[in-house]
């Protein structure tokens, strides 16, 4: 049981580390800036969810905290993505 739990945590960490490398690869390259930046922001949201689901152990759904974190990541992503898209070039 606990060994399995540790495996989940380690798997989450591996995905997070890999996602960080992907983000870094997307950061400064020739890909269209807008698409690359949007991808980076969505990956960030995905990473944040991994952290609170598996590191902070909200995956089991302890309420209201899981709902708070889900809303938080949605709002923060919406703010950043929205402002990024609407900022005049």
């Amino acid at each position, binding site marked *: 049981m606990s060994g399995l739990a540790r495996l989940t945590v380690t798997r989450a960490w591996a995905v997070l580390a890999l996602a960080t490398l992907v983000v870094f690869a997307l950061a400064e390259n020739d890909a269209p800036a807008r698409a690359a930046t949007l991808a980076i922001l969505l990956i960030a949201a995905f990473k944040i969810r991994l*952290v609170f689901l598996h590191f*902070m152990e909200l995956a089991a759904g302890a309420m209201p905290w899981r709902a708070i974190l889900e809303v938080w990541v949605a709002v*923060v992503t919406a703010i950043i993505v929205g402002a990024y898209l609407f*900022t005049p070039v």
Partner: protein
Amino acid sequence: MRPSDPTAGHADLDTSPVTGQRRLAGDEGVWSFITADLCLFAVLFLLFMTERYKAPALFETSRQALDPLLGALNTLILLTSSWLVALAVHRAREGQRAAVRRHLTLAMLVGAGFALTKVYEYWHKIDAGITLLTNDFFMFYFALTGLHFLHYVGGMAVLALCLAKTRAEHQDARYLTWLESGGCYWHMVDLLWLVLFPMIYLLRAP
């Protein structure tokens, strides 16, 4: 924010090892603190994006003075340190005190790398004549990362305290709540950086 269920604070007192069903890791009160902190940072993110909206060219040229490699390195450092703390919590539930100590020590050693990188980065900027008074972008850069750095320092202190408790205390439910709460705080430091890094370093103007 509604008042928490008064009995929930003591739910951690029943010592039954985690069954994984809807049990909150850590103390409810600490989670209120984390929520308040996350809300404050969300407002700061909004203010940053508002100022960026007003001066996109300034934010873009200033951003290019930052080194994304250092930001990515710090992301990896915090993620790894968080991972080690999460493992320590699981080990504590299994009652493996030596493994908890080992994981916490490693988490602090890896975590210390964040401070090294950050101090190097700040020093480099100040050396180049860039301070929080340079322009609006660098005001946010220093203020947001500085505020986050204070959280980080607090987190390292909490980890040290958890390590001391692991050495000294009998591993009861109270101790476990301490460790879980400290761990969740440390994960929050990690989580905030996951927003700060892309928002400050990587928002490339099209």
